[in-house]
């Protein structure tokens, strides 16, 4: 199975957790990555700059109508929901908060599942509410792979716990093991099957 896209959701403790996951990925990582991290509406782009410096993969803020390309990690801007369109571009909306969040992880995961189906990997990391559980369930329903950070060792366990409560997720992993699993699933340039 060719996995083309990874979606990641995180809340409290997410900055460090996302950095851990992305840090080991090479700049030629063969999938695209879309990320929702719950942020204050007044955030100033620190997260994008910090991650871009720390990681080899290209990290940027998701732009309206931008084409989703492999080797890039796109982060939802504060105070906008991030959606995936049928033509594999990104779109933003300012509709009401979902699960008290904007950006909402559920909205990203559900729209991505509709477009990428079996080719999608969904990951829920540390967080203090249940945003993302419904979205992860949808990813599984549409044939994608689901990964959740081990709630027992997550900085904030509510989000991963809520996710495993409603879905038989494919992998529950320690934070440090998630990038290895991603590289295994997505493959790298030495993989003869790609």
């Amino acid at each position, binding site marked *: 199975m060719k996995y083309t896209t990874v979606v990641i959701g995180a809340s409290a403790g997410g900055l460090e957790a996302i950095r851990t996951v992305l840090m080991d990925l090479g700049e030629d990582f063969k999938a695209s990555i879309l990320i929702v991290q719950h942020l204050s509406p007044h955030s100033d782009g620190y997260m994008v700059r910090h991650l871009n410096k720390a990681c080899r993969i290209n990290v940027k803020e998701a*732009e*309206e*109508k931008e084409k989703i390309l492999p080797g890039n990690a796109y982060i939802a*801007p504060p105070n*906008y929901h991030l*959606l*995936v*369109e*049928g033509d594999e*571009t990104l*779109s*933003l*909306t*300012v*509709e*009401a908060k979902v699960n008290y969040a904007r950006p909402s992880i559920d*909205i990203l995961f*559900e*729209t991505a599942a*509709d477009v990428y*189906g079996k080719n999608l990997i969904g990951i829920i990391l540390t967080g203090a509410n249940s945003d993302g559980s419904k979205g992860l369930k949808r990813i599984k*329903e*549409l*044939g994608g792979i689901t990964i959740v950070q081990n709630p027992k060792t997550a900085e904030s366990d509510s989000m991963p716990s809520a996710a495993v409560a409603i879905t038989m997720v494919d992998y529950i992993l320690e934070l440090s093991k998630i990038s290895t699993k991603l590289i295994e699933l997505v493959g790298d340039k030495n993989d003869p099957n790609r």
Partner: protein
Amino acid sequence: MIKETIEEKVENQKIEIQLLLEAINIKYGYDFRNYSSAHVKRRILHRMSVTGLANISDMQHKILYDKEFFNSVLSDFSINVTEMFRDPSFYSEFRKTVVPILKTYPFIRIWHAGCSTGEEIYSMAILLKEEGLYDRTQIYATDFNAIVLEKAKEGIYAIENIKEYTYNYQQSGGKASFADYYIAQYDSVIFENSLKKKITFAEHNLVTDGVFGEMHVILCRNVLIYFNKELQNNVIKLFSDSLSKGCFLCLGSKESIKFSASSKDFEDFVTSEKIYRKKYLP
């Protein structure tokens, strides 16, 4: 009968949505066919679950036969999440860079396209008053949704937001006390009548309607994000055709003209705040 797979369901829903949008266009003349499709799907599924309909085709039927229901669908499509002085840095930059140029014009025409419930209009009205420009300005406030237009005309908002609005106002370079501009009554605030004097409210649909006048400033913030690329292209052309040379188009902070064919008509004026200026020479 073989039960459809979930992938088939997603595919079938796509078709049903297309048909539903066709039905709306044919019956009511509102064209949502070029709105962003992920957004449209979410709005439709939301209305379906609230109403307890079994599927999108049933919703299409109800839309055709129940005008009240159609009106609720219509308001679903018009996203009205807005605030006074939203993105304060935009207003602050507008004061610093656009206002000095407007001060050189004998009269000013400003168009709020997709004005929603009006918070942006009253924000700009306050700014213009403080800069001494209000009396020589005519403001046009348009939206395709008659219901929100009525709300905009009233200028009455929930009091629970006033702290946030006050903060925004101060951050935007507000020169007075925000409370000077409204009266609090029960759980609402009512904005001053003097702010409404130079505002004309009218229905206008960016998808289907054309140029209605030549403007000095057009504000269309967080409306284009709901349109697909093709429709964005058409609307930006409409704006270009509606602007005098050397005059200003203001988009939402995450929007851009860069994918549109009319981008060559404009130059960046304040890049960070998506304020564009129509070139004098093509």
